[in-house]
């Protein structure tokens, strides 16, 4: 029990329902290849892991420090291109993946520090606008530099043999599941997700995390205590960017492809924002749950509506209402309902109820 509390840096979920949800998520992800066999399910579980890292890293910026940045997908893309560029150029090996990830992380950190020092002194709205402009510029650059990034078409590449679908860890299936390169890739993603998430919990519950929360609440008061808010905000931005870059590297390995639409698009930025807001800002657990909700909705809402539409085929109006082409409308309704019933996000609202007793 004490070890568990130390592992999560003493940041207890704070509500029984939340504890159950988080344990269920951990168990489901740890055994995903066995509980939910199939290529599609594994892709969903992998994406959930990657978006947990991405959304939680964004929460360090938005939830803990109160900074609204639209450049998070740019850092995600930097990590993805960091891995994709050497692999697509025929350097297929773990050293290429490691160096590509480190390169992507370093670039993300340098750019984040640059943006932070140049623009965090200005008002929050101007900072957001600067990040939007820089992210648009990065997307434009990725499409224009065809020789390096593959332009609009992106880069398709091979991965080391252990991660390729043809690889077999065991000759025989284990519990009916063939341990191939896809499963290996999934467990690599899962392990990195777990380590990074625990690391983020550690940071959020350290004195550094307290300073970030203090700056979010009142920057002037934090300055009067001796904290240089610009430095701390910049550090938070750099940390968040570095973790987003690692998530990008994982995405590239998962897809064995990277292009502007898969890691740099603005729609991913909107998804990340929704994950953090729906889950609960400044909680880290919230973005993890938000990532599950959004990724599952993106993958399964349309098939679920198809099934509903078919089941109500004989009734008036209902088949049209549940027509799978209207899935975005229902996704919107789902968001509105979540925000209505959980105004502080799922985690924030549950914790609030627990405090009131």
């Amino acid at each position, binding site marked *: 029990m004490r070890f568990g509390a130390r592992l999560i840096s003493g940041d207890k979920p704070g509500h029984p329902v939340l504890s159950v949800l988080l344990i269920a998520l951990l168990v489901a992800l740890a055994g995903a290849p066995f509980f939910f066999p199939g290529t599609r399910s594994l892709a969903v579980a992998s994406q959930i892991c990657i978006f947990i890292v991405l959304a939680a890293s964004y929460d360090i910026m938005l939830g803990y420090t109160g900074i609204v940045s639209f450049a998070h997908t740019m850092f995600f893309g930097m990590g993805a291109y960091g891995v994709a560029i050497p692999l697509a150029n025929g350097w297929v090996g773990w050293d290429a993946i490691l160096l590509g990830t480190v390169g992507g992380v370093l670039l993300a950190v340098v750019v984040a520090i640059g943006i932070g020092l140049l623009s965090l002194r200005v008002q929050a709205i101007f900072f957001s606008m600067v990040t939007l402009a820089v992210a648009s510029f990065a997307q434009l650059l990725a499409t224009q530099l065809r020789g390096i990034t593959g332009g609009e078409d992106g880069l398709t590449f091979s991965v080391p043999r252990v991660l390729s679908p043809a690889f077999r860890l065991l000759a025989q299936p284990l519990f009916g599941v063939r341990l191939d390169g896809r499963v290996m890739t999934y467990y690599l993603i899962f392990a990195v997700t777990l380590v990074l998430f625990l690391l983020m919990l550690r940071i959020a519950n350290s*004195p550094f995390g307290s300073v970030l929360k203090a700056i*979010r609440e009142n920057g*002037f008061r934090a*300055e*009067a*205590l*001796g*904290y240089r808010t610009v430095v701390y905000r910049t550090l938070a931005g750099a940390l968040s960017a570095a973790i987003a870059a690692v998530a990008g590297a994982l995405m590239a390995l998962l897809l064995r492809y990277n292009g502007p639409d898969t890691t740099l698009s603005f729609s991913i930025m909107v998804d990340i924002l929704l994950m953090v807001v729906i889950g609960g800002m400044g909680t880290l657990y919230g973005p993890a749950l938000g990532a599950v909700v959004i990724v599952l909705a993106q993958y399964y809402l349309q098939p679920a509506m198809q099934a509903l539409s078919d089941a109500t085929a004989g009734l008036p109006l209902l088949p049209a209402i549940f027509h799978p082409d209207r899935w975005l409308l229902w996704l919107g309704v789902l968001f509105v309902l979540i925000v209505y019933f959980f105004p502080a996000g799922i985690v924030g609202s549950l914790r609030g109820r627990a405090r009131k007793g």
Partner: protein
Amino acid sequence: MAEIPLLRLSGVHTHIGRYHILHGVDLAVREGRLTVLLGRNGAGKTTTLRTVMGLWKASAGSIEFAGKPIQAMATPDIARLGIAYVPETMGIFSQLTVRENMVLASTTGRFEEARLDGVVFALFPVLREKWHSAAGSLSGGQKQMLAISRAIIEERRLLIVDEPTKGLAPAVIEHLIDGFQKLKQSRATILLVEQNFHMARSLGDDVAVMDDGRVVHTGPMADLAADEALQERLLGLSLASHQ
């Protein structure tokens, strides 16, 4: 040789937007003494403190701390010289726990248990009970205790405290007076803005009275406390009404 004050303001002017608030403030705070800054509302007391902390920049004049000019320094650098500031609004972080608030006030991110027990909890035992509570859930008096505790969790060279009794119940004020008395015994140097003359008189070694953005009187508190006519002239009050 004359004693060099720990904090000295010479001819300090401060503008806030187009308003000229301080008109050449001269003030000295001596080491190991509690100096009370008195004055009517709008006299410029809070602006003086905020100017010392660099929260408003002095447009003219000089501010020296331990002989070092600080008027051009950034607020965090001024704080790191060993100046703790407890603003009128207490300056606590209501969304953080009492413990987190205290951690923030520590320069190392940790604090000595001995000082926590021997100084902070000895002065304000209620904070031990509220250690893991959100600071926003504390009462007004408890928030003030937290704000002061944060300033003394480490040894500071100067404590600047702005109206700690504002809006507090008389029993809590007596408790705060007791706390400040104990701080004085530890030879802490304190600059205190206070409207409550009873508290100012009980605690002050020295006094400076401000009016219209200037210091119009300085001297020992005992002299002001003994001179009702001077009080009447400077502050518009008589001691009798505050007995």
